[in-house]
């Protein structure tokens, strides 16, 4: 080996130029730890605020009271008493409301997203109705459908149908120009283009709409119970609030949130299953070079 043949090598002498990048402290802790810490801090402040007498216990119950009541309601639900019956009523309203919203929302979404008639004539009305305060329709639903479960299902469906319509329609519009041209060039019929291009391309948008709907459907059912009576959890909350039993209101809301959370979880799981190609989106994408 000849020394002359060696190309010049830089940096052979002197020290390495290793330096440290600034990293925020919070990103060094695992997520669950930071979440737990925040919760503990929140409950701590809550506890201090109530025990120091800054806030009246009628307005804000102490964390201890709330946790005790959570246990009470939980035992009630497990023993199958009136609370479980009420929870079941609300659950039924939520599920039926969601199913009705899904059927109507997807049908309207396809009408709006796929046909020019829907896009030009129907869509403006959907937007117009969407901007209305939808809860104001509750008395109408009660007048039409009575004080039973149906009027609550109707309100829940009415409130959650719009994100599904918008998500479906936006999804059907999501296929880009190139993809449409490709399908046109291979002579695909309208139905084939819908089934093999537009629907799969639009699934992410559709599921986004579905997620929003899965949360608002619970609000719809509860609002229906507030305004139209009934035997659900909304009624229990109303009664507890009228008795100034704030710990009960808090614990009922927390159990209700479990209902919304499970709806959301089911939809998210379905999205994970069906839109499998979006899972790796923030992961490895070897699209860079050849």
């Amino acid at each position, binding site marked *: 080996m000849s020394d002359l043949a060696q190309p010049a090598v830089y940096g052979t002498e002197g020290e390495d130029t290793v330096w440290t990048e600034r990293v925020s402290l919070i990103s060094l802790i695992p997520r669950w730890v930071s979440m737990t810490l925040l919760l503990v801090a929140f409950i701590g402040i809550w506890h201090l605020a109530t025990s120091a007498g800054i806030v009246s216990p009628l307005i804000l119950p102490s964390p201890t009271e709330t946790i005790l009541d959570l246990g009470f309601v939980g035992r009630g639900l497990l023993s199958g008493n009136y609370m479980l019956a009420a929870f079941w009523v609300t659950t039924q309203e939520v599920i039926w409301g969601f199913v009705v919203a899904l059927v109507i929302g997807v049908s309207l979404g396809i009408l709006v997203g796929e046909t020019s008639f829907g896009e030009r004539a129907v869509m403006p009305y959907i937007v117009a109705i969407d901007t209305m305060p939808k809860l104001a329709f509750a008395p109408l639903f009660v007048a039409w459908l009575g004080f039973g479960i149906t009027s609550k299902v109707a309100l829940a469906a009415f409130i959650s149908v719009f994100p599904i319509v918008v998500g479906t329609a936006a999804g059907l519009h999501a296929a*880009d120009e190139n993809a449409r041209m490709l399908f046109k*060039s291979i*002579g695909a019929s309208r139905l084939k283009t819908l089934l093999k291009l537009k629907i799969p391309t639009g699934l992410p948008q559709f599921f986004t709409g579905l997620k929003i709907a899965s949360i608002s459907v619970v609000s719809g059912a509860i609002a229906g119970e507030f305004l139209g009576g009934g035997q659900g959890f909304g009624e229990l909350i109303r009664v507890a609030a009228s008795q100034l039993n704030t710990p009960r209101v808090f614990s009922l809301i927390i159990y209700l949130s479990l209902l919304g959370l499970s709806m959301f979880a089911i939809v998210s799981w379905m999205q994970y299953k069906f839109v499998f*190609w979006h899972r790796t989106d923030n992961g490895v994408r*070897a699209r860079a070079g050849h």
Partner: protein
Amino acid sequence: MRPFPVIQTAGALPRPVYELTNVSKYYRGGGIVALEQVSLSLRQGEFHSVIGSSGCGKSTLLKIMAGLTPPSKGRVMLSGKPVLGARPDIGMMFQQATLFPWRTTLQNVLLPIEVRDGKAAAEAARPRALSLLELVGLKGFESVYPSQLSGGMAQRAAICRMLVSEPDVLLLDEPFSALDEITRDFMNMELQRICLERGATAFLVTHSISEAVILSDVVHVMSARPGRVVQTIEIDLPRPRTLDMATLPEFGRYVSTIRNLLDKGAFL
């Protein structure tokens, strides 16, 4: 059967595949002239390019040839039949690979067959698709999803999808312009190899002069507003072309001729 006289005029020449006669395209009721009186003919086994600055109507021309959009005037004939819509004997390729992420590479390649003739036909075409994937060097990637393919690999899969229905003619709309230059050169040579192997007839839209010269038998130079073919240049370089030919003096002459034409067209 007596041969059709117009087609058989020069006996030695192969038959024309595409024949465009005075094709024009207007938008907004004639206010905007996208294409004016474009006539060209593409013979069996030839590789033609159309080159021009962006907005000169070359993509419109390709869409009209593919039957994706109708001409306002003029006649487009393919294999003796008028083009009145999308045709199964045309294979197309776009700037983006446009592979669908919910389909594996093989399923993407088989898409045109599946859409046109159903799942059973697609299943029957599997061996052909697999051999095409082997031809472009994607053997072993057939069950991989597009997110795991690089840009160049995705375009190779798109080549296979274009070829799987065994079209008579290939229409290429800047197929490699989204790739980096090193990959693009390589893919152009691959394209030439595939075209030569299959005796394919191809029509390429590009805005790269050297790409047009290295690949084509004939280059049509277009000017903008109104979009028309200002000159048709035959490239007389031996086949197969290599990247090294870019250093030949003839190559340089072709490039500068085309560049001069484009400069003139651009400032008219």
